[in-house]
């Protein structure tokens, strides 16, 4: 537990005065994500601790440097959880990094993304001012939704100091079933189930097997199993955990790893490489050496976008934006960080 906000604010102010960029980090578990940043390190990991947690209000507020496992453990003790099931990518993962990257795990398609659970935040903007937006209540439309805008901004708009999140109760029980199918059939099935009120909380297709996680009361799961079929798989928690932490064998390749985000019912895309589908088909991982332009063109055709999740070389990590959209993004960057102090270039060269 420590409050180092004044120190962080001082560091930001001197960076603004000297116009020297900062590379914001905590425990660096997500430093692979986005372009490398050249700048003086600004370490927020010392700013940590849970500030409020009210199980009956379904809200937790913690400082950005709070380790994710600490938060999850605290919630678990009250039978609650972060419903977006964030990947950690290392024991040391922090809340701030998770929100800044807007990372969500297998439950995303069924419960919402990190940004959906953000209720409020405190941040330092690019003028070294400490500001607070949103709050600790579920419904709040006073002012623009700055808190959600921070999710996924990769620290380029501000230094997150505190985040308030909506939390949810854990389900009474969980079960995973496995079915053998083709890729096209897997997509069809996942989308078919999504049109029915079924208690599905995760899906994954690894090229041969379709994994479906069910959660709820035991009787609910029993009834859903009749609709879904398949074989029961025993140790489910560790399996889904490995998947979200990218410790599944699929992710062990040294080739570039792409993340494609598209309409869940898009038929299989013809690009060479190995595929793994999640989120009912809306998130597709591709391990491939296909040229970036080819991948991006293919995904644009179906109105999606592609991120070079892991991989090196001189390739844009995030999907290039149309000029009119880039202009708005640049203007927003300017609104928060006029001197371009925070993580310049981590997301796009222009911001």
């Amino acid at each position, binding site marked *: 537990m420590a409050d180092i906000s004044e120190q962080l604010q001082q560091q930001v102010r001197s960076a603004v005065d000297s116009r020297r960029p900062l590379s914001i980090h905590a425990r660096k578990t997500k430093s692979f994500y986005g372009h490398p940043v050249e700048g003086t390190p600004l370490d927020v990991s010392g700013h940590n601790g849970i500030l409020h947690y009210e199980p009956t209000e379904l809200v937790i507020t913690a400082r950005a440097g709070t380790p994710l496992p600490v938060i999850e453990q605290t919630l678990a003790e009250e039978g609650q959880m972060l419903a977006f099931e964030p990947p950690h990518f290392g024991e040391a993962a922090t809340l701030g990094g998770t929100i800044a990257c807007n990372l969500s795990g297998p439950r995303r398609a069924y419960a919402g*993304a990190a940004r*959906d659970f953000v209720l409020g935040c405190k941040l330092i903007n690019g003028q070294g001012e400490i*500001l607070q937006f949103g709050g600790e209540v*579920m419904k*709040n439309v006073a002012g623009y939704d700055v808190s959600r805008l921070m999710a996924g901004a990769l620290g380029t708009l501000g230094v997150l100091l505190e985040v308030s999140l909506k939390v949810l109760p854990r389900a009474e029980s969980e079960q995973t079933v496995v079915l053998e199918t083709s890729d096209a059939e897997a997509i069809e099935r996942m989308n078919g189930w999504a*049109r029915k009120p079924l208690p599905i909380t995760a899906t994954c297709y690894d090229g041969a097997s379709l994994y479906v996680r069910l959660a709820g009361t035991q009787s*609910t799961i029993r009834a859903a199993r009749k609709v879904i079929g398949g074989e029961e798989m025993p140790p489910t928690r560790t399996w889904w955990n490995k998947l979200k932490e990218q410790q599944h064998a699929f992710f062990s390749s040294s080739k570039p790893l792409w993340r494609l985000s598209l309409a869940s019912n898009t038929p299989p895309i013809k690009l060479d490489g190995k595929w793994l589908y999640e989120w009912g088909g809306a998130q597709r991982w591709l391990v491939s050496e296909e040229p970036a332009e080819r991948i991006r063109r293919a995904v644009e055709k*179906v109105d999606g976008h592609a991120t070079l999740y892991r991989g090196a070389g001189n390739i844009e990590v995030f999907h290039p934006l149309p000029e009119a959209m880039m202009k*708005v993004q640049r203007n927003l960057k300017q*609104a928060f960080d006029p001197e371009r102090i925070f993580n310049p270039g981590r997301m796009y060269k222009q911001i």
Partner: protein
Amino acid sequence: MSTTAKQSTASTTREILIRRFKALLPAEQVLSSAEDLHPYECDGLSAYRKLPLAVVLPDTIEQVQKIVELCAELDVPVVARGAGTGLSGGALPHDQGVLLSLARFNRILQVDPQQRVARVQPGVRNLAISEAAAPFGLYYAPDPSSQIACSIGGNVAENAGGVHCLKYGLTVHNIQQLKVVTIDGELLTIGGSGLDAAGYDLLALMTGSEGMLGVIVEVTVKLLPKPERAQVILAAFDDVVNAGQAVGNIISAGIIPAGLEMMDKLAIQAAEDFVHAGYPVGAAAILLCELDGTNEEVSAHVYQVREILNQSGATEVRTADSEAERMNFWKGRKAAFPAVGRISPDYYCMDGTIPRKHLPEVLRKMADMSKEYDLPVANVFHAGDGNLHPLILYDANKPGELERTEEFGGKILELCVEVGGTITGEHGVGMEKINQMCVQFDALELTQFHAIKNALDPKGLLNPGKAVPTLHRCAEFGAMHVHHGELPFPELDRF
């Protein structure tokens, strides 16, 4: 400028505008006579009225682009309007500006049951989306009580909620893509067909931005499968505190009801007199708890919730056994506003949100203020998510009563902020709560909001004067509210 000089410039601008609009749009889509403008003089908050220079009713995106470009060229403010059901004066016209009505954008462009989305024009009514999706067993979850009338564009602009948002989220959680015309007349596609998009989350920024950042010309919403079963429980309490406690107890038990609503004595009475839903008149509060999901889950939860309600001191617990009875239970709640409208010449609907644990304290202080201002209050409350709708009963024909009501309302909102809540949960700031924004945010935060506005609308032509107060306005408002001899904005002179 003298008043007459000002008037004559305005009238020339007006004439030029109307002439140029008529070159862009068929004559019947440009309204300018006082008689034609009157229906647009206010939104659902009728205490605020103004006539715009003109009303335009485009029906293509290209027309919207041209209208906005023209307004930008002539430096004329543009106020977008959906169905005009807003309760905060968000769609109140600007007297030197144009009112851009999206009423003609009323087509459902596509319902895609495979992808579970509907692509609609912004003027489509909220309920019409669920009706169009119903044949596929799907629906659009956010259900504001105004859903038969309000438009989806207005819902996005306000981030509208509803009775079911505790479980299914607000508008921001249920939309996937927007098409927005910027002040440059540029058409932006925000979001995408997947669950996320590259770059900053403009979908979140646009949602709830009250027409200040762009004109929404198309919305793609997510559709959900209709739950297999929904059942509602009605519980009566002889003490509001127990009812509040019961809400916490249900949630602590790991149950997220689809809806969890509370009404107080006056609201129960008014609703019962109006629709005869069979509410326990005389109870201090009732809770309506709707549980939905699979058949098995609902059975299990109904049993559990009944136990919890009894243990929390409910004096009566009823479960609706049929769909007809369920609708009947809801009827009173849904008619609560008009019901209150029957017992009082006027009422003023507030919209604060508080952390639920402060409910007893807030209700008590509100009751005290009600005595102090000599104005009765009926409470309707989205209890699950802490969103209060106190309805202040008043008579606009009695001199000074509206002013007293507004002051009382403002005090309620300040109380919400004091206990860690917010001045608006779902109705937006608009014109109405602009002063209370100065209570919730400090000068630095407001300045950041203005910077965001400036990023998208540098000339400040989109719905100017709403949602975010100028620091000057706060200083004036602050001066009226000097606490302990201290101005709330001592740092103001720095700006």
